[in-house]
């Protein structure tokens, strides 16, 4: 079964890749992956809790 990948998915915020398995024009299976990681949770650790809003608000 042929597999297609659409990367980047545009008109959204964030980096997204979609892979799909296509059989006779029908999608049989699909996988989505976010292709960007920053580790905001790790960055937030041990900080002043009052600052959390600024760190965690972003998408």
């Amino acid at each position: 079964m042929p597999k297609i990948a659409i990367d980047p998915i545009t008109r959204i915020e964030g980096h997204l890749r979609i892979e799909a398995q296509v059989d006779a024009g029908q999608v049989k299976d699909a996988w989505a992956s976010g292709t960007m990681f920053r580790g905001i949770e790790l960055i937030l650790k041990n900080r002043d809790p009052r600052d959390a809003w600024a760190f965690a608000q972003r998408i």
Partner: protein
Amino acid sequence: MGEASGSIYDSLRKKGVSRRDFMKFCSLMAATLALPVGGAAKIAEALEKAPKPTLVWLEFQDCCGNTESFLRANDPTVAQIVLDLLSVDYHETIMAPAGKQAEKSLYDVVKNQKGKYLVVVEGAIPLKDGGVYCTVGGRAAIDIAKEVCGNAMATIAMGACAWDGGIPGAAPNPTGAVGVKDAVKDITLINLPGCPANVVNLTGTIVHLLTFGSLPLTDSMGRPLFAYGHRIHDDCERRAHYDAGRFVQIWGDEGHKKGWCLYQMGCKGPETFKNCPAQRWNQGTSWPVEAGHGCIGCAAPHFWDTMTPFYKRIEQVPGFGVEATADKFGAGLAAATAAGLIVHRIARASKKKSSEEEEK
């Protein structure tokens, strides 16, 4: 997107922008860039002839905040002019094509307009583990940046993340995130730090390039002086309260209601250089300090680490208003020994008028 023919003015006229609005825009730009008398006419003359430059916009470890800022130019006419100044050939968040077609638009520009196009970078570039923490079209951000910025006429790093790694680069920097200046060497680069950067400063930079054929003058950190040459604290409308020792002590107290100085609440205006008090935000309606919250220092180097905790007041207020630019300020920072408000108030009495360092 994609139409790159005709001068900027022609294309604006076709879209119904009046001569009057066009001249208003040129005056706004001349004021933003602090150009001497005749600046607006010079800008108008240049934009009447200049072809639209092609721009590609790269998003890496970003949150789209600078895109939001870009798409929210001050008023409909200005917004139209800003979008019309440029032929935006690639921008993931707003472009119609996706996948391979999108990537083709990008690499067509790199190939066919080598050395002639502009790049805006938004977001940091992760270097750890072979750059796997940010990929687009299966390619690592660092490889894309090297190729696309390396072949451009100039690169504009927009926002804190593209400047010095910003929030992804904050301790412990899990992904080895850096800004463009540390990721790609030997390119023509200007930095517009901030979280986000103000679209007025992006427009000003591009208009300067179109009018004078060069990027605006910068400080030692690669930031244009027209936008980052003044300290927030020196242009702040609450400054009189600071000087008089009238401080907000608790959120919502009498002083807060009366608009007193936010220094004790952690305002980082005394250590931050950006033109927020003059250019403001949200259609020019307000800016953080006017809205009643301290400046969090978003244009300062590594501000997520150096300016936090945001609500803790800065122990030392370096530079009693004598420094005109961030470069001199750096020296003042090292030399500053005064702690507390009393010392500061005495020193203020001997404050000298800062000399204008703006480009003339």
